[in-house]
Each structure stands twice: as structure tokens, then as C-alpha cells.
């Protein structure tokens, strides 16, 4: 918590050093730990009197410890240092507070989802399933197919747009595209879903549900992410390399394809993987474009498909009777989604590490 500069005398009272340099009194390093341990003990005593839940336990300890440390420091070290310590406590508590949702969420999902993480879950759909059993085979493959199609649409458009912005673009068109990519980043996912629905209902009539419509909706969300990250990465490729290729008489497009893109491949891979991770868990657009089905449909051009997030949504909100089996399946689907996203994130980091430019000398 507190960091005392080495060499500063650790005294509890202000002292006058013979040289005339007044060292503000410093509390010993262990003070803050000791104060919080004391606060914890005090709250434990309080707990004996009035039963406290965990949240209040932690809250009281943090508040009591902070106040005590502030008071002590105020008396021993002066107002300014005391305020500094106070802020340190507040900032560290804020970080601790932010960890609560993350840790509880992961614990909750893993502990509830692990029950149905079995072979059946991966190999069976929900056809004819009432109550126990059944799986998400159809939803897992639906998610993979629709996400794959999304990447197939988004990566070329996103990469080419980034190439345009970095290598070719100039003037108003470039500014307009940059601005609109920013705007697109902020489109609510449900609005993207409505757009794809409206687009496809022109051709297939109202009430249309197609896997490809879901991919189009997700592409609206994925393209700007790909553009942004690819743009950043391409800008990092030194201009010297482009010039070196031009000076060899290499046309611009070959320079981009053979020199710029290979140099940036690690960053591009990372960006694309993270963009996939961003859309793989999207639920809202798929809810309105792809719908849900209990049977396995792996053809994105023919009617409703199941996807993991939508599967999880309906298993939770419309579990049927008795509800507990469907709710278990919902949690397992949620767990699978988290695992999928985490794996993609790890892969992204591996890519960036693997392709990190080999620094010479």
C-alpha cells in the first residue's frame, strides 16, 4: 500500500536532522498493514455481536481501516501525507471492488455450468428432449458456422478498408470513412440485428429467420473493430520498408501485399481474433435475425438456426417444466461461451507474441 523511500529514516515523530533538513515524520512501512489487520479484528468482534454478511464485513474493514490510517497519519505525518494515504486506500479499494463482479461471475458460471459439461452436451441437440438430458450440439455448430461466416464477410471488408485508410486514402473520403467507422463502433447490437432483419425481409418477406442474416448483423458490429485494429497495426509498419520496396521497382499493390501485410501479420491476426471474440457472444442481433430451433440446422441459408448465446437465453427464460434441467443447460452454455471467448483472447495474445518482430543486433 504505502511505499516508503529507502533511506528515509523511519521515525514516528518529526525530527530535526543535524544538517537542518527537516524530515517529515514517517510511519513505519508496516503501519498500513497493521492498521487494516486491527480493523479486521475490530470488525470480527462486531460480527460476534451482530451477525454480518460478507459484503458488510469487507466494507466495514475497509472503511474502518482507511479512517484509522488517515487519523493516525494525520497526527503523525501531517495533513498532506494523510490525504495521500487516504487516496491510496480509496484507489486500491476501487480496484478491489471491481474484482468482485469478475471473480463472482466466473465462480458462479463455472460452478453452475460444470454440472452439464458432459459428452451428451456436445453430441446431442434438443430434439425430443423434455426435462433431463439433451445438449447444445446444434447451438455450438450454429455459433461456429455463423461466426465463421461473419469473419468471412468482415475480415476482407475490414482489412481492405484499413488498407485504403492507411495506404491510399486522402481528403474527404478518408475523413468520412474514418468518422463513420467510429460511428459504426457505437451502433447498438440490437440495432444491427434490426437492420439485417429489415434488409432480409425485403427479399424473403416479414418474419424471415436465416443464419446468414445473423452473420450480416454481426458483420455490422465486427467490421469497425477489424478496421480500427488493422489501421493501428498498419500505421506501425515503418515507411522505410515501403520505400525500400518502391525503390526496387515494386508496384504499390505488391508492396502492400508482400511487404506491408507480412510485416504486420501478427498484429492483424491479434486484432481479427479479438474482433471474433467480440462478436461470438453477441446475443441480441441473433435473437431477431436467426431465432432458435431445437433441431440441428447447419445450413445458414435455410431457416432458423440455434446459436449458443440465444440457446442460453431461451433455456433460461423459457425452461419449461420442470425448469431446473433447462437452467442447468443454460449455465453450461454460458460457461462454454466464456471459455470460447477466453480461448480466443489467449490465442490473440499468442499470435502477437509468436509474430512479434524479431529484433536484431
Amino acid at each position, binding site marked *: 500500500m504505502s511505499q516508503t523511500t529507502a533511506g528515509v529514516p523511519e521515525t514516528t515523530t518529526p525530527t530535526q536532522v543535524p544538517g537542518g533538513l527537516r524530515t517529515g515524520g514517517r510511519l513505519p512501512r508496516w503501519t498500513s498493514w497493521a492498521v487494516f489487520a486491527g480493523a479486521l479484528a475490530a470488525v470480527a468482534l462486531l460480527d460476534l455481536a451482530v451477525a454480518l454478511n460478507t459484503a458488510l464485513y469487507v466494507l466495514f474493514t475497509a472503511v474502518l481501516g482507511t479512517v484509522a490510517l488517515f487519523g493516525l497519519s494525520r497526527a503523525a505525518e501531517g495533513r498532506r501525507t494523510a490525504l495521500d494515504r487516504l487516496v491510496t486506500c480509496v484507489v486500491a479499494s476501487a480496484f478491489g471492488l471491481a474484482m468482485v463482479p469478475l471473480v463472482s461471475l466466473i465462480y458462479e458460471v463455472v460452478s453452475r455450468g460444470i454440472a452439464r459439461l458432459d459428452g451428451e452436451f456436445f453430441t446431442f441437440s434438443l430434439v425430443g428432449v423434455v426435462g433431463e438430458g439433451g445438449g447444445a450440439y446444434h447451438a455450438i455448430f450454429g455459433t461456429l458456422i455463423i461466426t465463421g461466416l461473419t469473419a468471412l464477410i468482415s475480415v476482407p471488408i475490414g482489412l481492405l478498408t484499413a488498407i485504403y485508410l492507411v495506404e491510399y486514402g*486522402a481528403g474527404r473520403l478518408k475523413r468520412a470513412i474514418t468518422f463513420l467507422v467510429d460511428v459504426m463502433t457505437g451502433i447498438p447490437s440490437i440495432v444491427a440485428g434490426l437492420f439485417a432483419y429489415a434488409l432480409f425481409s425485403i427479399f424473403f418477406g416479414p418474419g424471415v429467420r436465416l443464419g446468414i442474416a445473423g452473420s450480416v448483423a454481426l458483420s455490422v458490429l465486427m467490421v469497425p473493430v477489424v478496421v480500427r485494429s488493422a489501421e493501428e497495426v498498419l500505421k506501425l509498419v*515503418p515507411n*522505410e*520498408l*515501403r*520505400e*525500400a*520496396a*518502391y*525503390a*526496387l*521497382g*515494386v*508496384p504499390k499493390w*505488391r*508492396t502492400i501485399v*508482400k*511487404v506491408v501485410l*507480412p*510485416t504486420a*501479420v501478427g498484429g492483424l491476426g491479434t486484432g481479427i481474433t479479438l474482433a471474433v471474440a467480440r462478436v461470438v457472444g453477441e446475443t441480441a442481433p441473433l435473437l431477431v435475425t436467426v431465432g432458435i430451433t431445437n433441431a440441428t440446422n447447419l445450413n445458414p441459408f435455410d431457416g432458423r438456426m440455434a446459436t449458443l448465446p440465444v440457446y442460453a437465453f431461451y433455456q433460461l427464460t423459457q425452461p419449461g417444466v420442470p425448469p431446473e434441467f433447462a437452467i442447468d443447460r443454460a449455465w453450461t452454455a454460458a460457461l462454454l461461451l466464456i471459455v470460447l471467448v477466453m480461448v480466443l483472447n489467449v490465442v490473440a495474445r499468442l499470435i502477437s507474441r509468436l509474430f512479434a*518482430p*524479431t*529484433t*536484431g*543486433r
Partner: protein
Amino acid sequence: MAKRIDISDLDIFYGDFRAVADVTVSIEPRSVTALIGPSGCGKSTFLRSINRMHEVLPGARVEGKVVMDGQDLYGADVDPVDVRRQIGMVFQRPNPFPTMSIYDNVAAGIRLNARRMAKTDLDGLVERSLQAANLWREVRDRLNRPASGLSGGQQQRLCIARAIAVEPDVLLMDEPASALDPISTLAIEDLMTELKERFTIVIVTHNMQQAARVSEQTGFFNLSSAGQPGRLVEFDSTEKIFSNPEQKATEDYISGRFG
């Protein structure tokens, strides 16, 4: 192979700003021509306009004539990409392609242009180019290692090998030794003396001893004040420029009484 370049009334612009004005000069084949002058006087800009590298910057353009053995390089039907294949360039900082091996760097001019060449021919070309760049003996055991593992001086000679592998007629060098230590600099200078048997070489340098050592002709660029275009003040044989220049400005610059 080496070709003569005649430049007449050349104006070079960055957008609306005229960076270099009214250059008329002839560059002799099989010799080294040095361009000297203070920073920002447009010598590098001028060099880059000879192989049409100047225009890759947005808004940059050139007016006037650059004629190589009778062909106007800025003619309406001339592809700048073809110009650059005939006029190679070496940059101030060594810039090997970091994703490629030493071998691939030398072969880059061939490979990147998708020219088909038998493996044995390509091997021969790579070896010849590396030998011409005095690098062969140092790297022949590790041709497949990344180029970024070489020292700065080796990287610069690799860039020279890469430039001559496409068999250009002219070699432009933009302060090729300014980022190198004295020993590597000497290696590059020796190399230039060998290469001028085969190529027309134009070199921009801040180092006047270097210009005096390696070049036959020297051009002095200067600008009268900031915001004014740079001009070719004097162009003559190196001996004349360094011993008995016509212009006062040249003499001041040579003798260090500049600015």
C-alpha cells in the same frame, strides 16, 4: 549498363511549396557524383526525384525534365515503377525487410516483382550481388537467418546488394554511411569505388571528406534563406570544388565558414 542522366530546369514541390528550383545538371556514367550542402537544402529531395521516389509522398510533384540516355523519365507514358527498376536506391538508415531472410532480402527485387527465375540462377544472382556488396564472405553460412540479426554496417551492405540485384543502371545513395561507424563507413566507400565500374552512382552526403574521397563530380546545394527553394549553386569536378570553387558560398561551406 551505366547510363548518363541529363536534368534540365527541374522544380520540385511539396504541395504548393517549391523545395528545389531550377536544377540543370548532367550526371556522367561510370562515376560517382556527390551532392553536398547544408541540411534542408533539398539534396535528398533532388536525389529522390531522379528515380521518381519523390512522388510517393502525398502532394509531392516535379516539373522539368530528367532524361536518361535519351528517355524522359517523367514522360506521360512512363511508369514510375519501371523507372525505379532502372535506378536503384540506398537509404540513409539500413532498411532490410524484417520478415525476410538475408537470401530473401537480396532476392526481394526479383521475388516481389514475381519474376520467374530458376533456383540456380537466383542462387547465382544472390551470390554475385552479395559479393559485389562485399558481404558474401560474412553471410554465406547464414543466408537463411533473418536480416535483422546483422550489424548496422552489414545491413546497409545488404541493402546495397538488394539494390544491385535488380541490375539497375544507376544507383542513388542517400547518406548511406551516416548511420554507421567509421569502419563500416570505410567499407561502404570502398564498395562505391568498385561499383562505379558498373553503375552511375549519385550520393548525397554530409561528410565532405567522404565526397572528396569517393566522387569525381560534386554538386553544392544551398538555400538563400529559410522558406526559399534550394538551388544547385555549383557543379564541377570534385577537385575543382574542393580546391578552387567559383562561388563564395561554396568556399564558405567547404572551409567550414558556413552560416
